[in-house]
């Protein structure tokens, strides 16, 4: 019945059927419950969100199914905590040691936790894939968790040292690794995206953001007499210091003003270009996905992504206005509780709780708005921009792969890297 009227193009593409209203309701209720349960509800919310997104994504006439459960996420988290306790205890003890071990335990600990975080991200992907079912077959992922973690850590190091210039190549390399080990049943995945292509598309944006900063650094080196400056900074009193700085560097104050303006320009470019950047990366990534002979191409339009961000900004302004009006009585209560001469500890606790409540409502509200206006839109726009060719590859695929545990999800949660989505 539904299929009779569907035309060929709809069958060949990806559709998103979810009602935005349902998603609003789901996230708003989730935010309230997160507040009441101090975050314990997050396993249930994450599962609800995934069930909504998966079920409403229709690929060639058949929708995806998410069959993970909140209890799997919860137990994965508890196991992750049990694993991390000795690690944290070890760090705690080594920081007490005053010697060399204590000195290097900070950076070493950061590196180790970063590695564990990347390990968790790859394992979490494994869990999500094996809980994704399409036409009665699950996806699965092979490959080494530690192999990926090591690769990702090295790539991130390179990206940081090149101020982001290596990032396109990092993405391409890591996606190649992930997709090479991703399977739908026995149908192997592949990533065909090329790092250079993303690099060339991203370079103009990178230059626009970085140029003001580079110009500022250049101006500083040109104008400022470094010796005089370091001499000035070693002076005890502030007035002496300022006097010496001004005498030794007549151009310093204008350069400081110029630098501040340039920094502002850089931040403004970054904010304005962020949607464009997201559109470019998303389109490049989706166009590189392959499963056997099945090829994907994305026609994602940049202006649609900008539209999503405009809606986000508009709703945030509206939300801020409403919150300000609603928070007025709360702030008045805080004033009466703490304003008098005889302030009691109980009154102070109540006032603090009220302020915290307003803060939490604001933060959760922003997060809900962001997830509906930006993240859901990106999911929907991305999915609906896909054109599939070679769909016959999806016929006659054989079942393969076994469900994986949610330990990876737990690790990323406990380490605060990448939240559930």
């Amino acid at each position, binding site marked *: *019945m*539904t299929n009779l009227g569907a035309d060929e193009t709809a069958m060949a593409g990806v559709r998103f*059927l*979810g009602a935005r209203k349902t998603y609003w309701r789901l996230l708003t209720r989730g935010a309230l*419950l*997160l507040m*009441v*349960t*101090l*975050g*314990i*509800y*997050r396993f*249930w919310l994450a599962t609800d969100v995934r069930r909504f997104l998966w*079920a*409403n994504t*229709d690929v060639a006439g*058949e*929708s995806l*199914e998410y*069959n993970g459960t*909140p209890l799997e996420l919860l137990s994965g*988290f508890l196991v992750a*905590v049990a694993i*991390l*306790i000795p690690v*944290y205890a070890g760090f*705690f003890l080594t*920081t*007490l040691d*005053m010697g060399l071990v204590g000195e290097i335990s900070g950076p070493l600990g950061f590196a180790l936790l970063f590695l564990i975080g990347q390990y968790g991200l790859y394992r979490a992907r494994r869990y999500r894939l094996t809980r994704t*079912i*399409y*036409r*009665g*077959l*699950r996806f699965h992922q092979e490959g080494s968790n530690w192999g990926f973690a090591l690769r990702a850590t090295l790539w991130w190091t390179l990206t940081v040292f090149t101020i982001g210039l290596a990032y396109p190549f990092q993405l391409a390399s890591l996606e190649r690794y992930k997709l090479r080990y991703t399977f739908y*049943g026995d149908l192997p995945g592949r990533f065909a995206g090329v790092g250079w292509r993303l690099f060339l598309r991203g370079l103009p944006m990178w230059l626009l953001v970085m140029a003001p900063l580079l110009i500022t650094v250049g101006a500083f080196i040109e104008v400022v007499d470094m010796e005089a400056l370091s001499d000035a900074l070693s002076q*005890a009193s502030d007035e002496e210091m300022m006097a010496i700085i001004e005498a030794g560097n007549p151009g310093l104050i204008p350069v400081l003003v110029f630098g501040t303006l340039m920094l502002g320009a850089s931040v403004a470019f970054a904010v304005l270009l962020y949607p464009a950047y997201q559109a470019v990366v998303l389109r490049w990534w989706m166009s590189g996905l392959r499963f056997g002979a099945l090829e994907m191409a994305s026609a994602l339009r940049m202006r649609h992504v900008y539209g999503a961000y405009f809606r986000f900004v508009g709703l945030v302004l509206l939300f801020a206005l409403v919150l300000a009006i609603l928070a007025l009585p709360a702030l008045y209560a805080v004033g009466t509780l*703490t304003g008098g001469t005889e*302030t*009691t500890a109980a009154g*102070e*606790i109540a006032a*603090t709780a009220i302020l*915290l409540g307003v*803060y*939490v409502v604001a*933060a*959760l509200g*922003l*997060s809900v708005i962001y997830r509906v206006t930006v993240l859901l839109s990106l999911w929907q726009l991305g999915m609906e921009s896909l054109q599939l060719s070679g769909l016959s590859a999806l*016929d*006659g*695929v*054989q*079942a393969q792969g076994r469900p994986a545990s949610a330990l990876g999800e737990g690790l990323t*949660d*406990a380490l*605060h890297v990448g939240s559930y989505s």
Partner: protein
Amino acid sequence: MMPNHEAPTMTEGPGVYFDGRTSTRHDVRVTLTPSGLQVDDGEGRRIADWPYDQLDELNAPAHVLRLGRRNNPALERLEILDPPFAHAIDLLAQNVDRTGAIQRRQRISVIRWAVVATTMLLVVATIGVPAIAERLAPVVPVAIERKLGDAVNMQVRGQLDTGNAGAAFECGSGASETAGRAALDKIIRRLEGAAALRMPLTSTVVRRPEPNALALPGGQIYVFSGLIDKAENADEVAGVIAHEIGHVAHRDGTQAVLQGAGLSFLFGMLLGDFVGGGAVVIAAKTVLQSSYSREAESAADRYGAELMKRTHGNAHALATMLAKIGGATEPGMKILLDHPETKARIAAINRIATDGPTVPFLNAAEWAALKRICAG
């Protein structure tokens, strides 16, 4: 459009079936029998026979009823797209519920358990954490406590030592200060002898204008020069030092470190990072820690007063000194102040102190020397 609920429900309808072994899509006929549903392919072959009580309703878009068989290792799926027919199955199978009532019930039970768990966590944080720290602190080896003290000492010195216009941070080493140092040692010896601590004390007078004193893990005590300036006799200084020895005896510094670690673990790790949760965690930690330390201060007061009594000092002097510096405590929110209300503390100390004859800690000359310990 809506099916008439009074009419006999459908017993046969179309469906889409996936066998869980291949991705091939089968258009099937589904027949509802009294005990279960039967799935037949186009040629009339029976593919599946599922009892109603083994049906599971699975994640699907609103217009699709997606069914699976419970505890089936293969991901066999049956999809019903016809709304009246889906409704008929809904009526027959207990676990299939398109109204969402089962889900709502489950959700309410989840919320109930989550609220219970949250309450338990708060109880553990307010009662459990300080209790565990109290029991754990005495068994921490002295060597580790010393190391901890060294680490804290570096931080504290970094904060307190603000130049002092060229003078040394520590008093008592200059030529005109050694007599003061000897007087301080005399007070410490008398108190330490009666205290029977597990580790030797290290005490230092430092140049700080505030009337205050500090005890660190590992037995380091800092007496601020501002305290000596404000004191009118040696017993007042001794009283405050006795209070600080109380912190050392109770190992409050170690306890505070353990409490901080415990709270960080409880709030930072077990409660997740939902948006806005960070501020709640910090606020909860701050309020809880200041409430722990208020109790530690009262306990140190009692210890100090008892120690003064045992060494035949004037235990009232601690109360007198408190009254003097109580007015000088910085303004701020009461729930964040480490110290309990000064009036209550003074009353508690005076209840312990007796009015018998006392032996002063220092004679007039020694007291004068102590007053000049930071003379430079």
